[in-house]
């Protein structure tokens, strides 16, 4: 079985450790993973800006890069939602392109959902000593139903105690380009999230999307909270959290 890792722009640029953590997890499940060189972006920024033509071009590039994969795994609910739910809608369903994109979309998974439902990973390699709060990033939660899977996996880690974040399903305010088009509202929503994190008593906040994490971490630090740690769920599960940048 050939599993393609779609790294996503933000992981590639901002947090490569998430990509390596995803690799480690997939390999721990006994899978052979390929990372196609020609991948760039899922097209979501264009799609959400109303630029369907741009989105189509990027989706086709993605489909070409991953055509020979049995599965595409994405360490982001938002990019996985774009590819799985929205990408097929951009094409005429009976066209050759439309059928290919739809078929690949159906084989595309958010990382934690894939690990639980397809790869059936029993023992994630990580361990964590402390209390973490899991934030349900919106697209993964509402477009793909990612809710129990990350929690199931996290609960298997020795030493980890998972606490519920008040309003865990409320948007953190990132919203892709929303975060810079409407920065005041975006930051207000981040504040609500920061308060919830504090109220939860967790020492780390964990989510499945680097976009939300950059936004939450950025606001935590600006508010003067240097203590709360911020991880992608893959980093915690792989046990690579805090190992620092891979340079």
């Amino acid at each position: 079985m050939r599993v393609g890792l779609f790294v996503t722009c933000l992981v590639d640029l901002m947090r490569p450790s998430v990509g390596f953590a995803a690799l480690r997890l997939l390999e721990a499940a006994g899978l052979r993973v390929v990372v196609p060189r020609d991948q760039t972006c899922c097209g979501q920024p264009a799609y959400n800006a109303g630029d369907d033509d741009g989105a189509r071009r990027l989706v086709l590039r993605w489909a070409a890069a991953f055509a020979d994969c049995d599965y595409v795994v994405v360490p982001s609910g938002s990019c996985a939602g774009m590819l799985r739910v929205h990408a097929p809608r951009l094409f005429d369903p009976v066209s050759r392109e439309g059928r290919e994109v739809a078929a690949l979309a159906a084989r595309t998974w958010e990382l934690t959902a894939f690990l639980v439902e397809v790869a059936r990973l029993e023992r994630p390699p990580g361990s964590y000593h402390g209390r973490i709060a899991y934030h349900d990033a919106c697209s993964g939660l509402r477009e793909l139903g990612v809710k129990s899977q990350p929690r199931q996996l996290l609960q298997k880690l020795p030493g980890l105690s998972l606490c519920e974040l008040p309003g865990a399903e409320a948007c953190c305010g990132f919203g892709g380009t929303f975060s810079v088009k409407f920065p005041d509202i975006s930051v207000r929503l981040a504040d609500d999230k920061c308060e919830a994190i504090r109220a939860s008593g967790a020492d780390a906040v964990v989510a499945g999307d680097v976009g939300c994490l950059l936004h939450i971490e950025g606001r935590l630090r600006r508010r003067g909270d240097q203590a709360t740690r911020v991880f992608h769920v893959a980093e915690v599960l792989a046990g690579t959290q805090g190992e620092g940048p891979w340079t």
Partner: protein
Amino acid sequence: MDVKSMHFLRNARKALADPTLRQALRRTEAKFVQGRAEALRELDDPAAVRAHATAIRDEVLARLDAWLEHFEAQATARGATVHWAEDAADVQRIVIDIARRHGVRKAVKSKSMVSEEVALNEALEAAGIQVVESDLGEYILQLAHEPPSHIVAPVLHKTRDEIADLFAAHHHQPRQTDIAGLTRQARDVLRPHFLSADMGITGANFLIAETGSVLIVTNEGNGRLATTLPRVHVAITGIEKVVPTLEDAATLLRLLPRSATGQSITNYVSLLTGVRGVHERDGPEHFHIILLDNGRSRLAGTALAPILRCIRCGACMNHCPVYQSVGGHAYGWVYPGPMGAILTPAYAGLERASPLPDASTLCGRCAQVCPVDIPLPDLLRALRRAEHQALLRPRRERLLLWLWRGLACHPRLYHGLAALGVRLLAALAGRRGRLSRLPGAGAWTAGRDLPAPAGRTFHELYHRGRRP
């Protein structure tokens, strides 16, 4: 009502700085969100009711012309007069005509968002007809000369103290601050108006085609008084509000109050059918029903058509993180929140409402709670598509999108520049590991730090075999 939606950004900023508004929004959000969840749990199978309700709305909209004609025939047979209004000016003209014909000098109103949409009060007052809002919230807003900030709870942005001040100034009675006392005061003031009004004006939650009835839900009983005491009753609503049967209306009523206020049923459900009969003692002598298009029929067959299913419960705004941060006034017209971000461009014009479709994180909570399953984020994207095609977004934003898109379509160039970019950012951040300022990225860094990138991209590390 003037469209001020293009000033969303400025108005939102003002709203964010208002601690009273924040407190008010938090209070109602908690009440409505929890109330809705609890009320829906009373149903055996909420998902099935929702699917049924959605199917009812879709069936009507697919043959709207036929159902409206059926409604008109039934209503007319029971003595009502049905008027067709193309736009706001039509409604104003029709109501003023009716008022003149019946010598109306005073009208009492029950709450109606469509009357806000057509700016009816201003038009009637200009024609010399006194208008008194009788819904408590709308009455408060009439005194304050403010538009509603929520379609169900119009005055949620005001505190009890502000209302106490307003009443003290207008009622010439000692200032009081307890809710019961304030309500009693408003009641005492409004009672004589009901008795002396010549015309009652209401909206309609549903129009029942099989009986020609107008159905309205209220909690205060003012709707009953406004439709039974005055000689003339005028109901104004959008053409999309028709449903085939009483049974269908009953299905939708299982969802409307639950989704709106968390009530199993509203205090009053009024089913108004025809004029007062020969041997009847209640009801108006004249019953006029005005059906407004104002852009609705234009939506049929377009990507925005599902918004016509809307039953105006307000659940989308109650669950919207953006609405809950900035309140309803920031949206700048009659309808706020996610449904307003679609209706305002649809009815008032995209160029006048351009920022609204973008003012959403697309978190999807609105679609999740919509009782008639309107895919609101998809509709917002459809409007963004129209904005994109009409070049309505700022030039800088379009240029950045175009550049990024070109780059992302050339993987080698993209990866090369990405590698350079992250080195630069990492160097700028230094050992601190984050950036508090970044030229050109002020929109991000004004309120947040930017956690610094690792300095090497994933692809660079992976493809050079530098795997950990």
